[in-house]
């Protein structure tokens, strides 16, 4: 079973469940492959419980819901500090346990000339580390920073998490 707490329609392309920008998806379907494309300054977070075989993928855009509480209420997955808790909570509801969760992150790139004025990718990366540090969660696999686009995928059968950058794949976590 696959569920989106935000209720957006999910696109299935070539057997992949595609998660768009500002969206998240949680699944316990062992046949499912969750994928998000075009991670730039946005960050993709995957979590997976290898015992319950429950996992999910979040693609958030901006670090903090303080920017606009109304938008955050309507779409928590737009922001890291509301999307990440929602991703975890939705997995818990399907039987995942915090102590078993494997967490990976990818994205957080910057445009070339950001002389410290915006740092959206960097602030997204900081937010991810801060939330996980405060909650005693270690990041098992991380591919963040730089200026390249990334594609992140999570295979629900075994939790294999892969990031693809400029045509090259790299495993972030595998059993």
């Amino acid at each position, binding site marked *: 079973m696959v569920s989106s707490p935000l209720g957006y329609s999910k696109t299935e392309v070539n057997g992949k469940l595609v998660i768009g920008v500002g969206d998240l998806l949680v699944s316990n379907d062992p046949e499912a492959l969750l994928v998000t494309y075009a991670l730039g*300054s946005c960050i993709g977070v995957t979590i997976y419980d290898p015992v319950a075989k429950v996992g999910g993928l979040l693609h958030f855009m901006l670090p903090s819901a303080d*920017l606009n509480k109304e938008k955050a209420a309507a779409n928590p997955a737009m922001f890291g500090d509301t999307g990440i808790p929602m991703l975890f909570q939705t997995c818990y509801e399907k039987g995942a346990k915090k102590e078993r969760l494997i967490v990976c992150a990818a994205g957080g*790139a910057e*445009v070339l000339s950001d002389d410290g004025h915006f740092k959206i990718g960097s602030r997204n990366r900081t937010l991810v580390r801060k939330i996980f540090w405060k909650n005693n969660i270690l990041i098992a696999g991380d591919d963040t920073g730089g200026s390249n686009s990334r594609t992140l995928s999570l295979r629900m059968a075994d939790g294999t998490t892969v990031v693809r950058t400029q045509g090259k794949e790299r495993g972030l976590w595998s059993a």
Partner: protein
Amino acid sequence: MVGMNEVLDGISELAAFPQTVLKVTSMLSSGKGSAAEIEQVARNDEALSMSILRWANSVRYGHPGRTFTLREGIARLGSSVLLKIVLEQKTAGMFASAGTAYDLQRGALWRSAVGGAIAAESIARSACFDSPDLAFLCALLRDIGKLAFDAHFGPEYISLVVRHTRPDRTFVEAEREAFGFDHAGLGAELAARWNLPDRIAGAIRFHHDPPASAPAHDVLVDIVHAADIISLWAGLAIGCDGMQYKLAQHVRIGLALDRAAAEQLVAGMWDKLRETEAVMAPYTEQGAAI
């Protein structure tokens, strides 16, 4: 090395610009776009009429329990909204199936075009620019050069250009190394072939390298340039070019773009983009993969 004309000569599917858009563009450029004129254009175009009806009866513009006719819808939406509907609907076909060259999913280029256009209009209003609609149009068309590269090279494009990328080099610099010209210049040439006004072609040509000083400086170009960067931060059409672009300092200062303003633009764009996608779904279904 292939030349710009060689690329443009070989792409028959981009040889003609939609006549409806050309009419609307001309209305915009002359500042004479009125609801009556647009109604006349819409009545001769069934797909466009359907699009107007969908918007007029949408959550944002409709009225619960009431269905508006085309004439009522046109009056209700107003000329500025109508212009955008024409532009979005008529360019969807051009953008929807392209993107392979830049390693993008189908529909990603159209989504980026519309997202950038929405951001450009917002920036133009904040900056009190006299024609937010023109900014919308220029941002919508800013990456038509990518369509041309896509149509000419297809998947081969990536291998030709990626070998010229460097961590400290912008992607347009890599394109110039690879081909002798970049997608912005190619887009401007295509705009000229379509007989679009010079100012629009200029906005397309310089949307990655906006001139900082007079006489070449144009606020319109600054706005389109900023909107392009906003659309990157929003995660739109980030393909093999990644985030390898620069925001010009004079644009950041001139448009008073700080972190809070940029993030508000990113967040605000998405609401409007999702609404547009919902209404435009019949025209972009094949490209709605991301």
